[in-house]
């Protein structure tokens, strides 16, 4: 059964190869491969939910010689989110790129990106993670530049270089760990790793490399132009999924592998950077003139919230309270994945219809596209953290944790970030209720509008009203009432 762990990586890889070889049929091959990949990812999640953690070592050599794959609750939760979001993006892309020559470039790169994404969530080997991160970064930058516009190419060129620097820094940390402990397997390393200065240096290198890739303030400078200038389905994938891969890795390394040496001081540093991201990202989103740039800055802010959990996790002993915080952090990451993908897909439709995405001039278009505007509103309410969205629960547990651990200074950050988020979301929505004349006809296109709507809906209802499964997959007790 654990043999099946390779499928979420293998299926999109084979699909990507076939889509490369058959450019004329790439959309068909791509859609079928997307369905199969999504199914394989969801079945792994189901297996972990039903039977607990899965693990296997490829090649039949066992660790430490072979490369291990493993899926625990954290992997399974992110795998499930990636499977659903990426499937929705695929369906949307099938229509978005229809008839465009970009389709034949999109599908192979998209499937390779998906393969790397699943590979990151399932890998149990530090060097394999490096290769996966590079595949992810290269395919993401290539996809981001697909429009061929000058600013898209400039932004993604920078994104590519930044990503390379991040991976190299990570790799140097891996080299130190291999020299000191003689293995690349995360599980074995965890047994051998002690609170030594060498391990601390490796931690600093690896986390700073990954923080650069996940756009943690003040290393976020590359993200807004790269995400705002990509084609809509790619923006959605970059913001919702790709930055989550490196965040997932930081969370895993910080709370598992490096648990012996990550103390409250280091975690507070991450928390402070997160707070900076929340405030600065939200402020820039409020000031943004363009819808997609707003969404990109909102990603910077939302990544910031995830890092606010680190100092709280560090100051709590293992137990229900800490489990709740951990699950709330994951829940916020998942909610952001759904909400931001839905937001970007909807923004892409607005941009297609209006020919631009300048917020101040969107009134008439917003009124003519009721389903799309509704998607933006739903996704926006999840970004703000209104009940019943998943991020409402996440922020609630976060604030409760800040109270309980006496770290009250995270409360004003959260409140201020929420107010700013409400302001930038309502700034967009107010356009839909402007004084433009009521349109004579509404525009609908089911194949692109339904994926966006479903994603936005999932972020509010699926993860908010039914957060219990997230706790269950992570192996914790019931969700807090």
């Amino acid at each position, binding site marked *: 059964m654990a043999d099946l762990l390779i499928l979420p990586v293998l299926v999109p890889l084979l699909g990507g190869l076939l889509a490369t070889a058959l450019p004329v049929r790439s959309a068909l091959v791509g859609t079928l491969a997307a369905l199969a990949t999504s199914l394989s990812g969801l079945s792994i999640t189901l297996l972990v939910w039903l039977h607990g953690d899965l693990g296997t070592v490829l090649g039949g050599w066992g660790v430490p010689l072979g490369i291990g794959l493993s899926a625990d609750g954290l992997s399974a939760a992110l795998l499930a989110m990636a499977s659903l979001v990426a499937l929705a993006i695929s369906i949307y892309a099938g229509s978005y790129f229809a008839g465009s020559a970009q389709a034949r470039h999109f599908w192979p*790169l998209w499937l390779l990106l998906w393969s*790397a994404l699943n590979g990151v969530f399932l890998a149990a080997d530090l060097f394999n993670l490096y290769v996966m991160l590079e595949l992810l970064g290269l395919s993401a930058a*290539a996809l981001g530049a697909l429009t061929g516009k000058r600013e898209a190419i400039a932004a993604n060129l920078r994104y590519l270089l930044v990503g390379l620097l991040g991976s190299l820094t990570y790799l140097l940390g891996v080299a130190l760990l291999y020299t000191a402990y003689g293995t690349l397997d995360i599980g074995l390393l965890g047994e051998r790793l002690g609170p030594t200065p060498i391990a601390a240096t490796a931690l600093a290198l690896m986390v700073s490399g990954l923080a650069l890739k996940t756009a943690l303030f003040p290393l976020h400078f590359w993200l807004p132009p790269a995400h705002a200038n990509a084609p809509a389905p790619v923006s959605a994938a970059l913001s919702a999924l790709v930055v989550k891969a490196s965040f997932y890795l930081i969370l895993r390394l910080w709370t598992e592998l490096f648990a012996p040496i990550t103390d409250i001081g280091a975690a507070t540093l991450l928390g402070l950077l997160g707070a900076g991201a929340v405030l600065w990202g939200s402020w820039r989103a409020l000031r943004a003139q363009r819808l997609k740039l707003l969404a990109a800055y909102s990603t910077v802010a939302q990544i910031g919230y995830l890092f606010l959990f680190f100092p709280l996790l560090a100051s709590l002993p293992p137990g229900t309270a800490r489990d709740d915080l951990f699950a709330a952090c994951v829940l916020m990451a998942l909610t952001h994945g759904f909400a931001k993908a839905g937001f970007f897909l909807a923004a892409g439709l607005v941009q297609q219809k209006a020919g631009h995405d300048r917020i101040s001039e969107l009134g008439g278009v917003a009124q003519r596209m009721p389903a799309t505007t509704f998607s933006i509103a739903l996704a926006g309410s999840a970004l703000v953290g209104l009940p019943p969205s998943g991020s409402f629960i996440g922020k609630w547990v976060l604030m409760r944790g800040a109270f309980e651990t006496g770290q009250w200074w995270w409360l004003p950050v959260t409140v201020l970030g929420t107010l700013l988020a409400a302001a930038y979301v309502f700034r967009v929505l107010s356009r839909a209720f402007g004084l433009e004349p009521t349109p004579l006809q509404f525009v609908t296109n089911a194949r692109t509008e339904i994926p966006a709507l479903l994603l936005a809906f999932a972020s509010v209802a699926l993860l908010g009203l039914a957060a219990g499964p997230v706790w269950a997959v992570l192996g914790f007790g019931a969700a807090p009432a």
Partner: protein
Amino acid sequence: MKRDLALLLGILLALLAALLLWALHATLALEPGPRLAELASARLEQTGVSNPVTAVLLNYRAYDTLLELAVLLAALLGIWSLGPAPAGYQRSGPALAALVDWIVPLAILAGGYMLWVGGHAPGGAFQAGALLGAAGVILRLSGEPSAGLPGEPAQRWLVVLGAGVFALVGGGLLASGFGFLTYPPGQAKWLILLIESAATVAIGVTLTAAYVGGRPGSGTAHNGTGQSRTVQR
């Protein structure tokens, strides 16, 4: 101002380098723990090859190598997505052409040798593929606009050949109950040779195509002025 910033960065990075040097020194001074080397050489006989680096690349850590081929492909797909290839170079004169006629077959021959020798000595698919790629670069430089590559449909199949054969062998082994990329006893050598041969061709074609620098099939017409920076649209 700019100079000051550069100086400040230099000082900070010098401090970082000093810290890292100290960390490396301390790490190397540790008693070398149970490294993978002993284990890798102890089980070398079962891997089907006698070159330990090839054993790591294609047996112990074959999964990494498969993904590395995917990385190479992703880069090429990215290059192809940016537009058609620029025009080639001016045709070489007779002396260079005669030299190329010698070097290219030699490079291909040497590539074949590298592929075979990789089983027991330094060499292997990547070295062999790099030689094939070099042959392609030389062809392009000497004025062959397609760099010796076939048309677009065949080229597409060739660049996915390496990762494709690799993944299919892995998946086939998984389907027949051995586990992904777990070679059955006694068949490792031939399966590795099959994968490496396919990978060599794919790497050579991919490197050449990346050097050509754009989608095949259009925009590679000659122009007599040497390298042109504009793409024909």
